């Protein structure tokens, strides 16, 4: 049996599945239920400074992008950080950690960019006995207008400065949570590392407007006739999150910095992707908000079965395994040639491959043969773009076949080369090495 327990920058957890700092980790009641369900850890919903609590809207805080079967693809929220008293939260955190010593309890914190604010709150957080600190430099709505959240995360200098304060005032591991609302995620990650961060977590939510009500012609959701952008998450953001995690994992300047992966994780497969691209733990929110806490049991079961089947002894053994397969476009082998193949025994004759290719790609799929409905790839036109594979409703019906070296590419009439050739070496590249 593969081991699912992890040691993430010194924080131990019986499995890599943590609940992200968000509504599900708002208070002891929820967190207790989460631990009972089997979550390995939680990041407590972001604490604010002592004083009058934050005020939330009491109208729609959430909006969703739904698939046709009403399964949730994307999710958006305008809820702020905790709106409960700091003392209440601290007391509950301490109590929960005492009851669940084997689980990871991290605490998310967001206070103004003043050293004394951080200096004031950190010892109190540490006193709860929690396992680590997560700095919320990510939330893109509400608090960012007050100079916190993503307003900090978008300025590398601020990240470094605040992270350094935190390292000064607490012995807890410090995880910096990054906002994806930047042009190059490597810069905030580098700043976190420079500030002494023990790890980064990402992504926080993406700036978003969910839609417009066609009847009222007002943006939705709205509160009293007006709405504002919220933070977008859920399955739709996963590819964006994977890219950002990968960028940091591959960046020589941040190499080795532990990453807690966040963004649309709803199954063990999703978690696998983050881990294989370098994440040491994963955080979940939307899936729990859709299905409830029990879903972690399915994730644990699936990941364990996968690791066993792959002969991988632990989560750590999986971590980063897909990273060597990621490179820059310029290093892709331009001598490789693939052609689509339509498996006629699986084809249901819908013709989507044909019309997609005919109208929008390379006119490489027939609609008829001998006057009869028939869809077949014209290899002399096919560039192996994969569009037909993606629009075909039948799994496995259309596949790409890579031509063997020496085989003639009927589109070019040339034999496929057995040696690799990338853009850096390509004769069409005026800047190629040696040119």
């Amino acid at each position: 049996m593969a081991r699912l327990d992890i040691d993430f920058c010194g924080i131990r957890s019986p499995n890599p599945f943590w609940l992200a700092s968000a509504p599900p980790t708002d208070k002891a009641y929820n967190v207790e239920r989460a631990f009972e369900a089997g979550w390995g850890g939680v990041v407590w919903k972001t604490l604010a400074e002592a004083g009058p609590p934050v005020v939330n809207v009491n109208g729609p805080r959430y909006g969703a992008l739904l698939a046709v079967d009403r399964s949730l693809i994307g999710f958006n929220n305008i809820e702020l950080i905790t709106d409960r008293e700091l003392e209440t939260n601290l007391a509950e955190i301490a109590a929960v950690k005492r009851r669940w010593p084997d689980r990871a309890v991290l605490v998310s914190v967001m206070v103004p960019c003043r050293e004394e604010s951080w200096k004031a709150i950190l010892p109190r957080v540490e006193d709860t006995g929690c396992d680590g600190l997560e700095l919320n430099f990510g939330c893109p709505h509400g608090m960012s207008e007050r100079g916190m959240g993503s307003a900090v995360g978008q300025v590398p200098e601020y990240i470094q400065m605040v992270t350094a304060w935190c390292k000064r005032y607490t012995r807890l591991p410090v995880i910096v949570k990054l906002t994806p609302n930047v042009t190059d995620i490597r810069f905030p990650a580098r700043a976190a590392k420079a500030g002494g961060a023990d790890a980064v977590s990402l992504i926080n939510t993406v700036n978003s407007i969910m839609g417009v009500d066609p009847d009222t012609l007002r943006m939705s959701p709205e509160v009293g006739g007006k709405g504002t952008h919220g933070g977008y998450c859920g399955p739709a953001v996963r590819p964006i999150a994977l890219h950002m995690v990968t960028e940091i994992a591959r960046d020589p300047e941040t190499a080795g910095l532990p990453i807690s992966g966040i963004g649309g994780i709803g199954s063990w497969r999703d978690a696998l992707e983050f881990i294989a691209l370098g994440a040491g733990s994963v955080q979940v929110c939307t899936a729990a908000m859709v299905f409830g806490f029990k879903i972690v049991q399915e994730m644990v079961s699936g990941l364990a079965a996968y690791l066993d089947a792959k002969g991988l002894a632990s989560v750590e053994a999986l971590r980063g395994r897909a990273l060597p397969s990621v490179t820059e476009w310029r290093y892709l082998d331009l001598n490789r040639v693939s052609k689509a193949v339509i498996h006629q025994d699986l084809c249901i004759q819908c013709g989507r491959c044909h019309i997609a290719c005919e109208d929008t790609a390379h006119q490489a799929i027939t609609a008829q043969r001998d006057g009869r409905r028939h869809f077949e790839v014209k290899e002399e036109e096919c560039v192996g773009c994969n569009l037909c594979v993606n629009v075909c409703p039948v799994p496995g019906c259309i596949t790409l076949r890579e031509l063997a070296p020496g085989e003639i590419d009927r589109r070019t009439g040339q034999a496929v080369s057995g040696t690799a050739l990338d853009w850096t070496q390509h004769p069409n590249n005026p800047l190629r090495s040696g040119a």
Partner: protein
Amino acid sequence: MSEPHRADIRPGRLAPQTYAAHFADHVAPLTEAQALLEANRCLYCFDAPCMQACPTRIDVPSFIRRIAEGNARGAAESILESNPLGGSCARDCPTEVLCEQVCVRHTQQGQPVAIGRLQRFAVDALMASAAPQIFTRAPASGRRVAVVGAGPAGLACAHALARAGHDVALFDAKPKAGGLNEYGVAAYKVAGGFAQREVEWLLAIGGITLHSGWRLASAAQLEALRREYDAVFLGVGLASTQQLGVPGEALEGVLDAVQFIGTLRQAEDLGTLPVGRRVLVIGGGMTAIDAGVQSKLLGAESVTIVYRRGPQHMRASRHEQELALTQGVGILHWLAPVEVLGEGGSARAVRFARQRLEGERLAPGGEEIVLETDMILKAIGQRLDGRVLAECGLALRDGRIAADEAGRTSIANVWAGGDCIAGGQDLTVEAVAHGLRAARAIDRQLRGRRSRPEQ
């Protein structure tokens, strides 16, 4: 000796409140949530096979996509543009052998997109809306066309001609328009008075005058129509029914299935309709199924459809046969009636001869069986009463009116379509297609000429 036979045929076999449930929509309408989910199963095929399979070439992918996009009105518009009787076709089309049979989801998942039910969803939504009329008439052409028969073919033809700006006189022998939709198909297929609602919608386009109770019974009538109108369309259906041609056919309790269904369809109170305790239906088409199932729904204790050939030869689709079986109607094959046996003037049994195929021909196999019954419904086919039409000088083929690809008959300015012409499959949707193609041809002809032709 047993007691003398007394046929048990009586009304009110069921509790009064049962009838409404028995004759309600046999296929429930889709809810909006169901329609959205089902619509999204459609793959929006290229050159969609379903569209090709529809005699009226309804653009199925388009209308379904519009449903999926929350545009039911646009969906209905797309349907009705191709088939103004899209509402009744959605209900009584044998979609399982037309559009849904060739649906690629059928190939892939063994479960086609429910095209018929989606079509009904869209058309019903339009009909229930505040502004159900989506078509307007072209400027008046000053031309007048007579349409004989207000069934699906005639209604489709009249509607298309009215849209094109012509004035239409629509004649029908029955008190109500609608043809088989009103008088012929099973009540549970077009429940809730849909046939008349559709007729009202069709006529509301304007320019169509309905003359009911008018039967084409003489050559002189057709001559008069040809004189008075610029063109004539005949969509008279098949008004006569085939006879068994066996002894005892005239006994009491031997009824015509078409008439039985017609009476049922017009009954104010189904509890007043007499039905046998045991019913035999002789035939193998849709009428046999409709008559058999409705007998059962009226409370008959046992209903058996008896057909002279095998299941694969029945004109009723497999789906219809299964419907009958699930309703508790039995089907016997390879039995042809030889004699209706009676007592005291009423039928009490039918003697059948077991049939077998000798090449393509049926031949008695020697064995005979007698099935006791209280009521016999004959559903062995309808035919054209060709006498008047022949007198009119119309060429007939296979006992029906000969018409070309556009519906032109052998007489100038006379078109025909629907079940009354040769070469068809006796489908509602096909009748609609006939009516529409004739309307197009008539319109072309009328626009191409400045004045009425010389007689």
